[in-house]
């Protein structure tokens, strides 16, 4: 690997080759605003907010796409650059539905973060605004194109994380929009509701239906956990408010899955607080299921296994385990069957 020496804002910096200027800045705590960049997605260079000045270049360049070069001289915060960024933000805001009061994204919105930082007011450019209908025809994702800033992250997430290619840009000029083919609503498209697009949207254009009105980002506690639905072991954050799970958000730090999740993991939280949920073991007494203590239930099971084994032999018992169990659980189960019961009758639903 080759090291590249360059100067950013008069500071000498050494980074590995192929690093982008943005990465080099972030490694050195130099702040650069970005809206369309995402380290997990291909570089896109669309929002143009991350522009910096590189000596010898005619125009400003996007730091998220430009790789460092030996001896490069970069400036990241000249008045010119700040002016350009501010204008870009003003242009975005001019075509954005400023509905922050009740917007689900409030507090986590990247646009409002930078608008605040750059002192952007909403009425600098007055003119036409997009007017699309809200797409909330499905149970999971609310799509509000009037807030979309066309950063294209959802398009890339769908193509690169979920590899589903449901989303793309359509139309041109001021009418450009993103969404499924033929402008279908999400619910009628080939979307599998993995929510990857939702996870990357920097503004309130894609929000989670179930979490609407359930709590502001600063009111919920994020608790990292492992998804119980299957054995893959995806991690995510349970969003908890007042001891109640209000939803799931993906956590880019998850070692197994990054931000990718499936429809069950991301949206299947309703059961947690469902009144129909079994919360104790049940034992059938006199033909009726009755709530029991764990020790009681386990004793009964052990007792019955023992008698069956004594009466009919070890091979009269078999175990079928589930893909929803973790590896460790599956291991324990077969160990139990072999060492304790004494049979090789072990099978698994995912064996075929």
């Amino acid at each position, binding site marked *: 690997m080759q090291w590249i020496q360059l100067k950013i804002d008069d500071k000498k910096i050494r980074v590995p080759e192929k690093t982008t200027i943005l990465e080099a800045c972030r490694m050195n705590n130099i702040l650069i605003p970005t809206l369309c960049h995402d380290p997990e997605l291909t570089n896109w260079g669309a929002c*143009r907010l991350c522009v910096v000045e590189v000596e010898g270049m005619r125009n400003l360049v996007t730091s998220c796409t430009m790789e460092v070069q030996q001896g490069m001289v970069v400036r990241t915060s000249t008045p010119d650059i700040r002016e350009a960024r501010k204008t870009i933000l003003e242009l975005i805001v001019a075509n954005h539905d400023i509905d922050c009061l009740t917007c689900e994204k409030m507090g986590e919105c990247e646009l409002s973060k930078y608008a605040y930082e750059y002192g952007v007011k909403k009425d600098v450019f007055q003119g036409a605004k997009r007017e699309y209908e809200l797409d909330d025809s499905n149970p999971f994702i609310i799509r509000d194109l009037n807030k979309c800033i*066309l950063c294209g992250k959802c398009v890339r997430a769908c193509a690169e994380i979920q590899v589903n290619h449901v989303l793309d840009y359509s139309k041109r000029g001021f009418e450009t929009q993103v969404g499924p083919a033929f402008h279908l609503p999400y619910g009628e498209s080939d979307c599998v509701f993995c929510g990857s697009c939702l996870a990357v949207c920097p503004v309130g254009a894609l929000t989670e239906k179930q979490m609407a009105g359930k709590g502001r980002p600063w009111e919920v506690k994020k608790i990292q956990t492992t998804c119980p639905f299957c054995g893959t072991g995806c991690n995510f954050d349970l969003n908890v408010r007042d001891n109640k799970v209000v939803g799931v958000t993906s956590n880019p730090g998850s070692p197994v899955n990054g931000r990718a999740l499936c429809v069950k993991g991301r949206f299947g939280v309703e059961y947690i607080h469902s009144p129909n949920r079994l919360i104790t073991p049940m034992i059938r007494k006199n033909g009726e299921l009755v709530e029991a203590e764990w020790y009681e239930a386990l004793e009964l099971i052990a007792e019955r296994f023992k008698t069956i084994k004594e009466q009919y032999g070890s091979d009269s018992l078999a175990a079928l385990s589930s893909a929803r169990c973790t590896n460790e659980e599956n291991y324990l189960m077969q160990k139990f069957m072999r060492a304790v019961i004494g049979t090789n009758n072990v099978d698994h639903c995912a064996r075929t």
Partner: protein
Amino acid sequence: MQTLAYPCCEKCNHTASTPCRDYIKCRVEGPLCHDDPDCKQKRQDFLAKMYDPEGLTKQILICTGTGCVSSGSQRLIELVREELVKRNLDETVRVRSTGCHGFCEQGPIVIIEPDKTFYTKVKPSDITEIIETDIVGGNKVDRLLYRDPVSGESAVTYETVNFYAKQNRIILNNCGQINPERISQYMAKKGYQALEKVLQTMKPEEVIEEVKKAGLRGRGGAGFPTWLKWNLCRKAQGDKKYVICNADEGDPGAFMDRSVLEGDPHAVIEGMLIGAYAIGADEGYVYCRAEYPLAIERLKIAISQAEKNGLLGKNILNSGFNFHLKIKAGAGAFVCGEETALIASIEGKRGMPKVRPPYPAEKGLWGKPTNINNVETWANVPHILRNGADWYCQFGTPKSKGTKIFALTGKVNNTGLVEVPMGISLREIIFDIGGGIKGNHTFKAVQIGGPSGGCIPEELLDLPVDFDSLSEVGAMIGSGGLVILDDTTCMVDIARFFLTFTQKESCGKCTPCREGTKRMLEILTRITKGEGKPEDLENLETLAGVIKKTSLCGLGQTSPNPVLATLRYFREEYEIHIREKRCPAHACTALLQYHIDNEKCKRCGVCAKNCPVGCIFGDKNNPYEIDSQNCIQCHTCIDKCKFKAITVS
């Protein structure tokens, strides 16, 4: 032997699968592999028949370029053929369909060779007279000759038409002269000789060196040195390389690429073959907009003829060089002319530009090193390699060599395609070739370079037209559009026109271009409606600056040019719109006020009856008046008033 491309006798064994290295030379000088006076005679007869310099037989050339076809030239061909058969002349008089002559405004164009008689605006009803008077009688049909708009004199041959006399047609030379659907006619005009020379005598590096010496710069807009691009692509690592011909031609008004493809498709193919050899590519694409069906059709024919004759495919002319060429029809988005968007479009994706670097020369089509040149650039290549860089360098200026084709339109007498040496002045193009301004109007400005270009005022008309002089004054050659504007054109409105185009064609990927041009357009629209504010001009300039500096691709980066250039040379006109709510050119309809002159008005009421919004009030006893609040400036009342009592100010 059906055409020149065919073998002379059984001894010739050139086919696509057993190629002969001297195939091209053989066709015009041959046969070369055996000595047979008969065969030689056959070839010479063919050449003579095709370009009959002695005028033994007459030829009727009928233009079948898109312009003339749409004004009915196909029908003319049928009629001429019928007429010749009727008079038993079909053996002695040849009828040929040709590519575009560039003077479409005068179409359909019919030329009689070898006399070079130039007939314009020929209608089906003129055919009998042409045959009778000219072909049979040997006289000219005077009323169909071109009449000079300034002197009023008629020009008998095309060489004496001012529009052609001052041109220097190298690239367009074959257009209008050969039948583009016959490879043999291209061969007879020295076609594919450059390829044969390159494959037999030159190393790829030498080809690049020759193009460097010729100083060829890209004709697609930016004027980038062609050899440099070839060299980068040649040096790029890759097991597979591509060459692409950019025939997207999205600039409104430009049609030189279409004309070259329609009129001389083999020149482009030959250029691409030479480029591919120099670069080390074995596959190429012509990316042509689907709105050019005739160009695509002609290209298809040309490709299949070249394949049949072993000029495309494997082991071309027994040199070991392979090259396959495909056509990709684009859906006609302006942005697809941008090279990275074009590549995305060939790959089947939405035509959206990508950030460069990496440049296509390193990572282009399907991630492989790719070289893209414009149609006209490719068409220059065979001339350079056949005649040598020194010959080429006699045309043009030290830094902009060769010729450039312009599409001359607007308020000028002669509109059409003109090929001129680089460095010629705008004045010569507009007043000598273009025949000056139409009607009784005066020149105001020339819009050059299409939506990415700028406007040049009268005082700069002696500027030499080359890549660098134009960019110094805020314009560019671009694709070569030249729109002549006269005193009836409003410069604010013209800026608005071009910005409307770029805003509509913005791919929508990046913020400054998508949102910024919209806001600029809104400001311009306001100004043309008399609703401009004093701070608007400054806002326009600030926005333009940000859009230029931060947009992703050339479309956005150049989109403010028409506004900036008009602000630079015609600022006063903007100010008058804002300050006095008036359009000096009387072009912005919203700023026009209609008045009825009571002295002249006879109170007939015709205007009131015809006003579509009913905003004219009056009767026999009360004078007629126009309610300017509701008037939509449609001009109906003026047209209807027999007494010329209504004026506009």
